[in-house]
């Protein structure tokens, strides 16, 4: 069995309760940190661990912490990003729902490292039952003396609360999240200033993903060096992967970074192989925003090397022939899936979720959605395919926040790798009228119609 850091206790009966969590050694990192370590020593351990942000961007967590402004004298805050809204991603919910005290423990230890005395967990509003689970767990932690004034009799005090959003993907972007936590619309802020200098209520703030924070107790209990021994190269530790789509066993899996994509999809320990044993057609390895990979680039890179579950290997080949680790939202497609329909589905999502602040994204996401819908329903033209390429290029890099890029990349990758499928929709409109058009007649079986 592979090493598990986050889910090793997930099957212990009653682990959701404070008592069982504590009996299993929970909250020991808080004791160790507050009684034997300085805040800077913890930051150094997290730096040494090589832990990278698990929300999608993969920025080193320890480095992010080191940017927090400690000189201004203003109060500092740690905000946990539990907005989890990237299509294909459902790992943070799993952690919070089944082992809520792990996140709370991580929040206390991490807040101590940052010198934060008031911290928040920002959870998406749709996870309302998880919001209430966390509220109850926080009350238990207060009652047991892990939160509040002078924790464990030390000088350190921390108040921790959970805050809920109300249905807006954009609030997963850290500055939009802060706006939302201030009771406003989720419009991303222009950076700089970065939250580390001016975040929540203008105070220095660090925003970290749930999974990132949940790794901190293990790093403090063991060491950054021990964490860095797991994984490969700059992809250290373990990663939660949300596996979904046409596989035998969808679900949340903790992998040690560095196993092969082949093993992840086909071994019984993880996805268990393809659903109904149908052929693999495409993979979105890191949530809806990352480029889709066609079958021949999934198990092997363009150079013929094995594709591994690491930040580097998934990105191998750049956007020409690679993709990204992203949030670990691993969506598998078999031959009955329609890439055009799926791309339209994603485009509809981004058009719906654009906050409307920047014109390239506000207008562009709507155009992408309309043009893709036209092609998918057999009303498109060949020029539409080039138009899509043009629109996505004009969104990418031209917006305040990365939602614009996130909307552009899946479209670009779909055209890059599956152009023939778009052309098929244009040339054979009567064949794509039914939304399940590849269910009985997979594209592979009719591809010859357009190749020559």
């Amino acid at each position, binding site marked *: 069995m592979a090493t598990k850091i986050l889910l090793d206790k997930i099957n212990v009966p009653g682990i959701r309760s404070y008592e069982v969590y504590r009996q299993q050694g929970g909250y020991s990192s808080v004791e160790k940190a507050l009684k034997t370590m300085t805040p800077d020593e913890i930051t150094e351990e997290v730096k040494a661990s090589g832990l990278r942000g698990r929300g999608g961007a993969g920025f080193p967590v320890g480095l992010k912490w080191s940017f927090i402004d400690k000189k201004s004298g203003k109060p500092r805050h740690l905000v946990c990003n539990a907005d989890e809204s990237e299509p294909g*991603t459902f790992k943070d919910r799993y952690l919070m729902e089944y082992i809520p005290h792990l996140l709370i423990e991580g929040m206390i230890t991490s807040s101590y490292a940052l010198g934060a005395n008031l911290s928040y967990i920002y959870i998406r*509003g749709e996870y*309302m039952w998880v919001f209430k689970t966390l509220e109850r767990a926080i009350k238990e932690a207060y009652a047991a003396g892990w939160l509040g004034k002078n924790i464990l009799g030390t000088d350190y005090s921390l108040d921790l*609360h959970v805050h809920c959003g109300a249905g807006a993907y954009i609030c997963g972007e850290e500055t939009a999240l802060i706006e939302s936590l201030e009771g406003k619309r989720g419009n991303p802020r222009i950076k700089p200033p970065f939250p580390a200098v001016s975040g929540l209520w203008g105070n220095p703030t660090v925003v970290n993903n749930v999974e990132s924070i949940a790794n901190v107790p293990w790093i403090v209990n063991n060491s950054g060096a021990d964490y860095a021994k797991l994984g490969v190269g700059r992809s250290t530790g373990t990663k939660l992967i949300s596996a979904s789509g046409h596989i035998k066993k969808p679900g949340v899996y903790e992998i040690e970074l560095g196993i092969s994509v082949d093993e992840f999809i086909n071994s019984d320990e993880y996805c268990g192989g393809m659903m109904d044993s149908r052929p693999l057609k495409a993979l979105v390895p890191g949530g809806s925003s990352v480029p889709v990979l066609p079958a021949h680039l999934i198990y092997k890179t363009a150079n013929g090397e094995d594709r591994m579950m690491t930040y580097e290997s998934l990105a191998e080949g750049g956007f020409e022939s690679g993709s990204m680790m992203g949030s670990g939202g691993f969506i598998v497609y078999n031959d009955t899936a329609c890439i055009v329909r799926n791309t339209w589905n994603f485009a509809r999502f981004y058009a719906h979720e654009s*906050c409307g602040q920047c014109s390239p994204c506000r207008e562009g996401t709507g155009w992408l959605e309309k043009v893709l819908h036209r092609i998918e329903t057999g009303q498109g033209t060949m020029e539409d395919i080039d138009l899509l390429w043009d629109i996505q290029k004009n969104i990418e890099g031209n917006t305040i926040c990365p939602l614009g890029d996130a909307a552009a990349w899946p479209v670009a990758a779909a055209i890059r790798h599956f152009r023939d499928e778009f052309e098929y929709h244009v040339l054979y409109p009567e064949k794509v009228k039914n939304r399940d058009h590849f269910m009985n007649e997979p594209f592979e079986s009719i591809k010859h119609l357009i190749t020559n």
Partner: protein
Amino acid sequence: METNKYKQDINITPELQQRIDELLSHYPSDKKKSALLPVLHEVQDAHDNWLSTELMDKVAEILEIKPIEVYEVVTFYTMYNQKPMGKYTFEFCLTSCCGLRGADDMMEYTCEKLGIKPGGTTADGLFSVAGVQCLGACGYAPMMQLGDFYKEHLTKEKIDQIIKDCKAGNIILHDK
């Protein structure tokens, strides 16, 4: 605003006020506005799942902010309803894997069964059906949100049962 077309009885009960006070205690006393999103959820839940202009004004008064600050938030976030909704609102996730694994079929089946279109409400005010964007349950598709909870791995049989349970009053909507 659309809300002006409908009437709503406003009642901030002592229990609701107590819950609002608890939420307010989570933020510094000079940052009451921060409690806006959670307070709106509580107020909406206690008022048949929608927010009239009058109710939004009441929230503004409680948080000591301008009404426009509430309106702009309510119109931005999809979970706040600006018109009466069915007591049981089925929100089907249509994104990504849900779309891949039959969400459209499930929503169509439900609409047909209830005799309404997506976005519509039954005449008795009991049910609404809506298609929504990714709910973060991709591994358990197709699924829908009902109140505070998710109903996952949906089948037509499961939907039949859920509708039956709603009619019999056997569905818990809120996790108190």
